[in-house]
């Protein structure tokens, strides 16, 4: 191996290729080690920074582990009651149509208690972006079964695994949203590898562009991990996600605009 003593010479401003965006505040994230919420926050912040939309963007934060999201992105925020973010975002966007408005919601928030708000906002074609973090569980409250929990998947309220005979089937709410005429762009992505991070960033950037053109509702599902709720290490959880979540929730676009 070539002897190299110049590491210090590499570390200088002109050689910088990646630095945390200043749209992220200096607050430490409250998330467990390896939780995808942090990555999802950061890439959303990167797009807002790169597109110069810091003072133009209003976020609506959910109830769930990401309830404190307003502490982490330096933009304007409104906290919503559990599941009601799309309704709150509807009001904000209608009153301030020149602003970029997004919600950020977990699967418990968006696909359980907030199912009605999700479906009706999308069916009305509200001109908002919905970012949906599907980790198949209620992370915040201790890992209870969610509508999105996989068949056979263990949670604190399905300790022997989800039995679809008594507990129903996992709800593919993103597919339902894609079938509604009001939705414009619907995609399912992940943030656990660099390649997936790049794709998800592209989806977020496109959604902001569509919102500027008043195209209707954009929904980006991010299939994500919950190492604590799933009782795995972060690295194991990402592998488990690839092997178990992705077959049920395949990544890719569900609805793309006819250009």
């Amino acid at each position, binding site marked *: 191996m070539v002897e190299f003593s110049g590491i210090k010479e590499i570390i*200088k401003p002109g*050689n910088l290729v990646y630095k945390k965006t200043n749209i992220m505040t200096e607050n*430490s*994230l409250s998330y467990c080690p390896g939780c995808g919420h942090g990555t999802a926050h950061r890439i959303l912040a990167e797009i807002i920074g790169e597109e110069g939309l810091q003072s133009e963007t209003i976020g609506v934060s959910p109830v769930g582990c990401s309830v404190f999201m307003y502490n982490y992105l330096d933009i304007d925020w409104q906290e919503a009651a559990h599941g009601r973010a799309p309704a709150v975002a509807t009001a904000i966007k209608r009153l301030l149509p020149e602003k970029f408005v997004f919600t950020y919601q977990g699967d418990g928030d968006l696909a359980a208690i907030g199912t009605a708000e999700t479906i009706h906002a999308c069916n009305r074609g509200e001109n908002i972006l919905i970012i949906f973090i599907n980790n198949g569980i209620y992370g915040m409250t201790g890992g209870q079964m969610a509508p999105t929990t996989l068949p056979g998947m263990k949670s604190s309220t399905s300790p022997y695994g989800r039995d679809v005979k008594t507990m129903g089937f996992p709800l593919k709410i993103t597919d339902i949203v894609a079938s509604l005429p009001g939705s414009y762009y619907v995609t399912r992505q992940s943030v656990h*590898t660099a390649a997936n991070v790049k794709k998800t960033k592209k989806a977020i950037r496109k959604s902001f562009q569509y919102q500027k053109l008043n195209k209707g509702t954009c929904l980006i599902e991010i299939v994500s991990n919950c190492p604590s709720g799933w009782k795995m290490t972060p690295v194991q959880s990402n592998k488990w996600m690839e092997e178990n979540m992705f077959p049920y929730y395949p990544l890719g676009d569900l609805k793309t605009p006819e250009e």
Partner: protein
Amino acid sequence: MAKIRGSIVVNVERCKGCEVCMVTCPTGTIEMAKEVNGKGYNYAFPANPELCIGCANCAMVCPDGVITVYKTKI
């Protein structure tokens, strides 16, 4: 011939030791420290700095945004 060289800086006190960066790094640059930071986590560090190519994969997957990446041709 010019060679691409990279270098990372880990904000050690912010690292949660999740190892996601370590398994993502294509060159085996990153390992977890035997020592812990103030939060009690074995933090990530460039154990083999001469291997880094500055691809920024580690920084892109770090949930806590604690990695800064530099790259140059030498």
